[in-house]
């Protein structure tokens, strides 16, 4: 649910990073936080367990600048990946404007990726959204590891749209592909505002 303030000429959009546990969602946010100009970002908030696993969400507000006279803010959220946090994941999808699915490229995580995408579709539906109709991109993360599935295999297993959703290869730990992915979804979100509802 984009919040448009004509009075102060602001647009706020909510973007959610989704994916199985340990795929690198929090790492994406940390990289964005580190590389963003101090006056363009707020605090990175992590509601995490003592062992640094996301408990409820991570949150990073970005105030990037003006497009066409509107101050544009992105609120980035991650969800907790573990299966038993499903209720929390649903809450975070409320009012989402765009979703980035972060897939773990390691062969042994492919089942977890597929399960998480199915879970995303179900949870979006419970909030009244359809994955096929919302701004959505796919990030193939951890491309630096030796035991990864090929890009084609991953597209085959994980793409849901026709024509396929945009795919970005990434190594979030080193920052590769992180901003490309965010830009990709940002563009879809802003372009989507023009669609008739």
């Amino acid at each position, binding site marked *: *649910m*984009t*919040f*448009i*303030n*004509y*009075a*102060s000429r602001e647009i*706020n959009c*909510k973007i959610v990073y989704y994916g199985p546990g340990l795929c690198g969602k929090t790492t994406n946010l940390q990289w964005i936080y580190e590389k963003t100009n101090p006056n363009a970002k*707020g*605090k990175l*908030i992590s*509601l995490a367990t003592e062992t640094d696993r996301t408990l*409820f*969400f991570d*949150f990073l*507000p970005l105030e*990037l*600048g003006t*497009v*066409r*006279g*509107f101050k*544009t803010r992105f*609120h980035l959220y991650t969800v907790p990946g573990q299966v038993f946090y499903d*209720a*929390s994941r649903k*809450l*975070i999808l*409320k*009012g989402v404007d765009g979703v980035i699915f972060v897939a773990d490229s390691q062969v042994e995580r492919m089942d977890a990726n597929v399960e998480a995408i199915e879970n995303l579709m179900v949870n979006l539906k419970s*909030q*009244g*959204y359809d994955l096929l109709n919302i701004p959505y991109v796919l990030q193939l993360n951890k491309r630096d590891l030796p035991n990864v599935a090929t890009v084609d295999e991953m597209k085959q297993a994980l793409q849901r749209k026709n024509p396929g959703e945009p795919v970005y290869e990434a190594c979030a730990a080193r920052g590769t592909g992180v*901003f490309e992915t*965010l*830009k990709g979804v*940002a*563009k879809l979100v*802003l*372009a989507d*505002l*023009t*669609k*008739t*509802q």
Partner: protein
Amino acid sequence: MAAPDIVMYEEEFNQIKGIIAKLRVDANSKVVFLVDKNGQQIAAHGDIENLDTTSLASLTAGNVAATDGLARLIGEKEFSILFHEGEKDNIHISIVASRVILVVIFDERSSLGLVRLRVKKASEELNRVFSNIMAKVEKERASTGTTFESPFAEITDEDIDSLFS
């Protein structure tokens, strides 16, 4: 899209700012702010210079969402008021017009009773304003098919790049 977008127009924005400024004085409180249920700040008033209002907004919405979830688990529709008591400062959280969160931060110069009383009155006024906004949005949607004239009709890669530069 499932929920209609919130759109804020100049007229209602000024009314809202007026209502929360008055509430701050009437309730003898430090800060009053309004957040939508997704965590986006709508307006804030009071001693906010040293307050991270963006984080406050997001955490408040997370708090309300989690509490709503709890309420439904035990068969309640929602808990309409949340109250957190600290050593010095307290937070009073309530839902307005089913979709907006009103937050009042106060210390020993005020009291829970006074805050509740004043919040009740301000909520009625805010309810009216938000009904007006929804009516306007509906009217706009009916006449044009869209909620608003998007400034991004032809957004380009350059626009996006300049945003992230």
